[in-house]
């Protein structure tokens, strides 16, 4: 898998993982981290040949 795909998969998994944490503890840290990983992944993906 390419770097961009790894970042994007991590973003998706982190987003799903963050939901029970948000539901029980109200913390959005992992959710935000997921979005950051998504942004990095998309940038890599767009400039990937």
């Amino acid at each position, binding site marked *: *898998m*390419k770097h961009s*795909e790894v970042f*994007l*998969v991590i*973003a*998706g*998994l982190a*987003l*799903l993982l*963050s*939901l029970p944490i*948000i*539901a029980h503890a*109200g913390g959005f840290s992992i*959710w935000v981290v997921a*979005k950051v990983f*998504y*942004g990095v*992944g*998309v940038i890599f*993906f*767009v400039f990937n040949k």
Partner: protein
Amino acid sequence: MFLTNSMFGIELSELFLFARQLGLVLIGAASLWGFVLTRWTRHRSFEKDCLVYDWIGAKLLLPFFMGVAATLLSWVLLTSFNLAKAHEGIILASSQNLATQQGEAAGPFLFIWLLVLFFGLLLKKMRPASFSQNMEWFYGVHFLFALFFMSFFAWTGEWNKEQLFYLGHSIHSIFTLGTVLILDFLFITSKFSAILKQHVYPLFPTLSKVILVGLGIDFISVALVFNEAIQLTPKFFFMQTIIGILIINGVLLAGPLSRRMLHSQKEGGKRISLSWEKIGGIAGIISVASWSTVTLVDFFANLTLTYIQLLVFYLVLVLVLYLGHTLMERFQEKVPAFLEHNR
């Protein structure tokens, strides 16, 4: 009065608003990719490629006119509407009065658009060759109209971060849901012709990039209003679940699957196995179902369904789309002789 009846917190007017948005999204996406395909061939000047991309570009008139029908029908049925709510289940309500005023103000522009559309259709009927040679301008103009209407309905009256949020949410659907629908349409259209696959499959990475960037635009616009709009409702958790699924599914489609499909179409490349084709089809269905679901559910401000109920709705939609896909493939019309080359 019947437009205010609701079930599960879903207003009928919200359904019509979604239908209008879906129509504009289809018009915008079909026009965007129709323009790209037909314009591209002018620069490449490869005779056969020119014909194939022109043929594909013309095929996009089908989703284009489906979008026109949905837009006009829902516009007529609507008596009042709300601006598009938040994405990802993060809610920002809009002013009903402002939305109603905008609906009325859009009337003259709708008339102009219909006139332009009518003349385009007249040209297609009277001088089909001329229409075909200038198809990119037809698509270009209607893409701008779609952008205009989506922006118009998202206009709050002043430039602030709320306005940027509404604009981002409205327009990004062309690049996300719209492009996903066009990608799926192209996938089905090219299924039974190796020549079409050779021309369509190389487009998939570009379409995937546009979809992922479109979602990024959505993330940024949500960040602008996050603090005032966040509500931890079943709708929010459901939407986030679907977004997680569509990111992972999108990576599968845009990455390993796209590479296998592209490789299979190269000279000397091994034919993609039936199981990978099947996986590709299912991933495409999940993509369409996911994007349709997040766009649809967004329009319901006071949804009373539980997380599990929403999940069941999503799974039923995936099943319905799978059956629809199968039916569409069966009724896929024969391609012209110059595209016949099954592999």
